[in-house]
């Protein structure tokens, strides 16, 4: 059985701060105008994806199976906010923010994801949410960061992402360890938790949000001239790491998402033509005002290492 107390201690020992980074160190000049224009929307997406991860961990912390795991999730929630803050600080360093230092607006699919997590995140059963988060972490976080490090040579960026990647490796590890723990539980409980508690409108909400989210990100990546199979490789990791476990396979939600992941990575699958791509188009027509104002936690983001 995994020692979550030891993992929690490691997480505490590995904490880092924006104040550890010299944000004025040389290297910012490596960001050419051409690269800046290309990377700006990408960085904005990345910052918002950290927000989705953050909100997911906030909900997970409310339903953790043990006090240690609850505390781990509390740290992960904060770490995702830290990633968003550090990425915003990089954007500032590279001159990607406007005069007010304001954050670029999230795209509609990110807004929907945040909305659905704000509205339903705390009521989703643990198994569903605990399965969804690693898929997002593998697909979005993992893949996007790889692209970034290939494109940008600024040493400060590499220093920052050394920290972020180290955090993320612990996130993925714990994500799957928790699935193992849940999967080892009684089967009837798994079924009830996965299906019984899910209202149809929540399932539909999740599909409306997360299906187009991944395809929208793929479109953004392709628009930047980057190969989409990198994203697919990252999604495949979700299936391969999960199936290495002994008990994860017993979780119905895992199989549902694994099946979705398999469709996502198969570009010729009807999933793209008939479901995901049309949904990207459809969601892009949703008027933002319908979604209302996001909750106040989205205002917490800051590129300042020090607050007084």
């Amino acid at each position: 059985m995994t020692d979550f107390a030891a993992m929690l201690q490691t997480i505490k020992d590995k904490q880092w701060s924006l104040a550890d980074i010299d944000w004025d160190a040389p290297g910012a000049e490596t960001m050419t105008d051409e690269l800046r224009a290309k990377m700006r929307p990408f960085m904005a997406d990345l910052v918002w994806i950290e927000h989705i991860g953050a909100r997911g961990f906030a909900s997970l912390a409310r339903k953790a199976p043990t006090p240690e795991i609850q505390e781990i999730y509390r740290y992960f929630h904060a770490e995702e906010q830290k990633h968003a803050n550090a990425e915003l600080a990089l954007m500032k360093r590279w001159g990607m923010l406007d005069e007010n230092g304001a954050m670029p607006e999230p795209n509609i699919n990110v807004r929907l994801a945040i909305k659905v997590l704000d509205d339903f995140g705390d009521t989703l059963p643990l198994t569903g949410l605990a399965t969804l988060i690693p898929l997002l972490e593998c697909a979005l976080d993992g893949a996007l960061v790889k692209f970034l490090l290939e494109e940008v040579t600024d040493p400060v960026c590499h220093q920052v992402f050394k920290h972020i990647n180290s955090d993320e490796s612990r996130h993925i590890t714990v994500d799957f360890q928790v699935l193992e723990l849940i999967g080892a539980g009684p089967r009837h409980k798994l079924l009830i938790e996965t299906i019984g508690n899910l209202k149809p409108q929540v399932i539909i909400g999740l599909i409306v949000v997360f299906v187009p989210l991944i395809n929208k990100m793929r479109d953004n990546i392709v628009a930047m001239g980057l190969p989409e199979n990198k994203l697919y490789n990252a999604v495949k990791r979700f299936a391969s790491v999960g199936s290495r476990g002994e008990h994860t396979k017993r979780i119905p939600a895992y199989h549902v998402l694994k099946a979705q992941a398999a469709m996502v990575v198969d570009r010729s699958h009807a999933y793209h033509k008939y479901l995901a791509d049309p949904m990207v188009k459809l969601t892009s027509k949703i008027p933002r005002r319908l979604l209302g104002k996001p909750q106040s936690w989205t205002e917490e983001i800051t590129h300042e290492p020090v607050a007084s």
Partner: protein
Amino acid sequence: MTTAGFRGEVLRGIEWFSHDFTGQRVAVVAPGREAAQIVPEVAATARSVKVFQEEPDWVVPVRVPGGRAVSAAVARFFLRTQVKDPWIRRLLTPHARFGSRRTAVSVGYYAALRHPDCKLITWPVYAFVADGVRTAEGVEHHVDCVVLGPGSVFARDEITEGRPA
């Protein structure tokens, strides 16, 4: 982990009581049930207060007769009427499963938190540095004085690791 690295003033136990914080930026590091007692008092004189709430607890304005279920219901209603922001309300709501299950009596905690110079922070504190505290969202919060609640994890560590001179 102790407050040893911090250069400013550290108040422990009930040293915060009737203390004059005029002109000071104060960090209160404590579980919710203690913050509920400490924060209104500190906010009365301090220049600014950052409340590093280690875990949320139910707060009732006056002592409530009856069991925990009754006081939790009163506390929930009190919170709803006092705090309009749904996210902040969430941060102040105790965890259903592993909470301390203790209830604090404080009429002024939520009112103090509504003040613009008083901020609730629930990110975990992971270190004390010369000028303040570092939290896991990557920010270093500069303060002049730290009030350590007796139930804080740092107060407990100071008992086992020894109190910094």
